[in-house]
């Protein structure tokens, strides 16, 4: 199947507050997707719904074609690392690997041991005594040893030093390259995400704001620099995502629907980081694919 994760009008409520609302997306396989958004935007909620730790209050979610939750088969094809990489702290690495073997149908203990060995993490030390980066690596190893088709990571490198972060991402990329796993990872570290992710999901206050392949998004957005103009209608620009003005100059980040021919503007490409930051700053604009792509009949977003 070609969709690793599919959500239709997915929603989750805590009391009267909707942590996630009206979420519809279809993540293709073999992608590395970034899940971005401010704290409390619903990223963890989405991941927990996808892995069956939470049950939807509205809509539905399907993962690898099945419904997460009570399906053992499905669970053993999904690798998940929750925030702060929870582990049984008084277990040693070797014991955690044994545990995985007993709880999972598909388990590659050899791979796990090899990886930890390569990373220099001793197998006979209690994981509570390891550093933050090492714990994250152990948690990732346990998820990878399931040989999953889909990997869900909730802020896996938060609070970890830059070198450990780099090693984590290297390990992740190597594994994805070898096994073709689909990955969905949430993170605040936009710099890391740009080199690693080819699909973007941006959430704000429980709603989807931006969705789509990174290449398409970057191609469809440009930064325009030109003389100060307050009335911002530019031919070729469908929406203005962010505008900043000095007394002489205007800088616009726009979503295009054609070529920008107006010679008054200098056109620049935009980086993923700048794109994300601009959308985060203004929750009222969105960049979502049209209804045709998702097979729902929601109204057209943004332009």
């Amino acid at each position: 199947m070609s969709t690793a994760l599919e959500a239709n009008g997915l929603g989750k409520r805590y009391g009267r507050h909707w942590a996630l609302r009206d979420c519809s997306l279809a993540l293709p396989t073999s992608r590395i997707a970034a899940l971005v958004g401010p704290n409390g935007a619903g990223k963890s909620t989405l991941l927990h719904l996808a892995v069956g730790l939470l049950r939807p209050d509205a809509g539905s979610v399907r993962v690898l074609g099945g419904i997460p939750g009570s399906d053992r088969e499905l669970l053993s094809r999904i690798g998940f690392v929750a925030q702060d990489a929870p582990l049984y702290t008084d277990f040693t690495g070797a014991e955690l690997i044994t545990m995985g073997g007993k709880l999972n149908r598909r388990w590659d203990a050899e791979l796990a041991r090899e990886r930890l060995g390569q990373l220099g993490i001793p197998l006979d030390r209690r994981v509570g005594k390891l550093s933050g980066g090492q714990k994250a690596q152990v948690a990732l190893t346990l998820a990878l040893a399931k040989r999953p088709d889909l990997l869900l990571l909730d802020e896996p490198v938060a609070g970890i030093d830059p070198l450990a972060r780099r090693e984590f991402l290297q390990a992740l990329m190597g594994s994805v390259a070898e096994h073709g796993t689909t990955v969905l990872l949430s993170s605040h570290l936009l710099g890391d995400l740009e080199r690693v992710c080819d699909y973007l999901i941006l959430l704000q206050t429980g709603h989807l704001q931006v969705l789509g392949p990174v290449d398409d998004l970057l191609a469809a957005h440009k930064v325009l620099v030109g003389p100060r103009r307050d009335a911002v209608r530019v031919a070729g620009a469908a929406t203005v995502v962010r505008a900043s003005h000095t007394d002489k100059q205007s800088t616009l980040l726009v979503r295009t629907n054609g070529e920008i021919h107006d010679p008054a503007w200098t056109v620049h490409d935009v980086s993923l980081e700048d794109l994300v930051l601009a959308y985060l700053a203004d929750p009222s604009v969105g960049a979502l694919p049209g209804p045709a792509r998702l097979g729902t009949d929601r109204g057209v977003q943004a332009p």
Partner: protein
Amino acid sequence: MWLTWRQHRRQALLVVAGLAVLAAFLLLTGRSMHRASVDTGLARCLGAMRSTVDYRLSDPAVGLPDCNEPAERFNAEYSGYLTPAILLVFLPLLAGLFLGAPLVAREVQQGTHRLVWTQGVTRRRWALVKFGLVVGAILTLSVAYALLVTWWVTPLALANAARFEYLAFDLQGGAPAGYTLFAVALGILAGTLWRKVLPAMAVTLVAFVGARLAVALARPHFLPPLERRFPVAANTFPNPMLSDWILERNAYDSTGRAIAPGGDIFCALPCPGYDPGSYNVHVYQPAERFWLFQSIEAGVFVVLAALLLLLAVRRVRRIS
């Protein structure tokens, strides 16, 4: 299964070690108590008492033994043990608080449920195996412990004719095992509902005490009690060493007026001080019903425990 063992390995060893120490103490003191029971003639006397035809009555003049004398000799040395014995009553509650409540609550509190419930086992299976193993182990230990304590307490209880009374009853037979099972089940369920260890423990404490009190207050009425009347002035009286559970005692004179409310009067013939028609009334549960009552008490708590565990398994599947 391996996981449950490995996860609770340290706890299990601590509990077993603690119980072993307790057991050693009980064995040592119990042995000396049993020997004393024999030495003072208490044991023989109680045995003889049982085998006499009309042991329900005691009449020293006629030679029917009431074993008062050996009992007093025994108590002179060992009555001090009654107080620490009370502490043993708390053991089931401790089991519920420290073994039951954290079982699920700690898992959720520390976030490891996000690790273990996303592996390849369903929550239902995880819960069944975990609860089953833990409860099974606790059940075995508590039955063994209950047997040991029963053996230990029996001479003490019989010497004081207190076997059927509150507290002594709670320490003997299957009742402690039932309490322990109930406490642990309660703890586990509280853990699934409150998901943090301390609140779960608090709730377990309150609920356990409440339930025990409720059942204990109902205990006199498990079966309709019997009533007996006997004259105040007589030479034979119901044998006080029998360990009947006397619920109410009153003495009335021949007109029906209460002359000793809440108490009874034994006055050997001739008895000048009292109206010859005065009589005592006992409302009691006979000693023969002891084991029946034990079964009822244990049974109630075991059934409750089973229900609570079932609820707990169902709750686990719905935790967010």
